[in-house]
């Protein structure tokens, strides 16, 4: 194993406060792959890009900058596990590094709390670190698997803010990416393609809070397409998408009378499962949708 790389682990809200299993899975699976995720003490909400960005982009910049500065003070790059957090933390870091006028304005506000954005660190989604062969890579993930997820079909939901807008990211075309499928297949599962794969889960932009039925209708369309492809489970890399697909299925049943029972996993939970963590260690009992039918296929 190569030398261990250290990152400040930015948790966000939904992972630690609703799906803590994906927090512990991320820490433990990364450790086995040479990534040390250390707590980013005092971090807050990223803040939610849909809510804060809609109200006042300047507040969004300043609030995200405070989180970034905490990591700058530790001298560590940030790693995170949520697409919404990625939009806030990655994008604001990038904007502040390259736009002096904006940086000066944000630093004027940060001065009130004795902080200064210096632009000394980078921000990464854990999924891209796992995929990067210079950091971890598919081969190393495959080698870490103890319980292959053989015989299962998994649909990948990329979510939006990891790769879009593409001109403010570095991951290429957002029409038909395939790299998370490679991460899934490294675990021994079959990754299935489905109709309109890159469609949003429906939760973002404040829509889940503004018009729940509208937002669930989008989720429902995705679930239909995923079922059509014969998937046994959905995997994503964003706890907000996870919440929308997982708890959303309960709400879809209440509102539309449609029941899917489609298990939903953060990729790091699947990785934990494949590395031999037990369902209890992964907190899978906290999911709204029972994961048993999927687990029966692999355990």
């Amino acid at each position: 194993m190569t030398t261990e790389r250290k990152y400040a682990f930015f948790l966000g809200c939904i992972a630690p406060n609703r799906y803590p299993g994906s927090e512990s899975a991320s820490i433990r699976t990364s450790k086995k792959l040479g990534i040390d995720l250390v707590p980013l003490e005092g971090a807050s909400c990223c803040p939610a890009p849909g809510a804060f960005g809609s109200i006042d982009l300047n507040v969004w910049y300043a609030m995200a900058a405070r989180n970034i500065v905490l990591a700058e003070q530790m001298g560590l790059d940030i790693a995170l596990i949520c697409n919404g957090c990625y939009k806030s933390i990655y994008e604001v870091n990038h904007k502040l590094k390259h736009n002096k006028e904006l940086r000066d304005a944000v630093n004027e506000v940060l001065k009130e709390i004795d902080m200064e954005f210096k632009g000394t660190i980078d921000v990464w989604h854990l999924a891209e670190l796992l995929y990067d062969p210079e950091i971890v890579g598919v081969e190393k993930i495959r080698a870490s698997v103890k319980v292959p997820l053989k015989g299962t079909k998994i649909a990948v939901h990329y979510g939006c803010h990891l790769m879009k807008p593409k001109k403010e990211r570095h991951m290429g075309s957002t029409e038909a990416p395939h790299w998370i499928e490679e991460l899934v297949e490294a675990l021994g599962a079959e990754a299935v393609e489905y109709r309109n794969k890159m469609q949003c889960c429906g939760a973002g932009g404040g829509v889940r809070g503004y018009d729940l039925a509208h937002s669930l209708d989008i989720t429902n369309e995705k679930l239909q397409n995923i079922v059509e492809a014969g998937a046994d489970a959905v995997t994503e890399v964003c706890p907000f998408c996870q919440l929308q697909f997982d708890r959303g299925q309960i709400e879809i049943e209440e509102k539309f009378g449609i029941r899917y029972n489609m298990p939903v996993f953060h990729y790091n939970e699947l990785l934990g499962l494949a590395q031999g963590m037990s369902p209890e260690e992964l907190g899978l009992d906290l999911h709204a949708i029972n994961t048993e039918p999927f687990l029966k296929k692999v355990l």
Partner: protein
Amino acid sequence: MVTKNYPDPKLNEKLRDRYYRRDQSKPEFTKAVREISGTMAHMCYQCGTCTGGCPSAPRSTYRIREFMRRGVLGLDQEALTDPDLWLCTTCYSCTDRCPRDLAPTDVIMAMRNLAFRQDIIPVNFLKTVQAIYSSGHGVPNNDVNRAAREKLGLTRDPPTTHMYPEYIKGIQKILDHYNLKANADRIVKEREG
């Protein structure tokens, strides 16, 4: 044409009006949208690729292309009072597909920022602000989750502002700098008493 049907009859009438009335055009609105969004919305040639790939369009009257046009024509009241403004999930599909390399999503965000300056904002957005002001988190911890965390070998509260509440003061100072908490409280109170 899809007809809107909102509870306010005056709003309904205005949003049904398909004519461009020059005296309602505000060039300063076009300019403000451009400044906040950072995209040259006036280069939009109305091809509709944005609406075609929009997940919200097939299930509502929300048409991102129409908002692009309203921005260019300076129709601020049509843009800001239309409840559909809040149906964008910010998925950025339109932005990635725009043949003019514009960012319609950022136009929507700019319009929402401008709407907020007129107190036009759904309360759920403001409740997120209130939650962050008091705890640092938009989705805070609870007792069920604390017990679950403990079982997983994690700390009962995550090592964020939850475990280190001394950091909340800094967050409050930032939000107060923009007077955001006071405005959120005021608007929520006006709507919900």
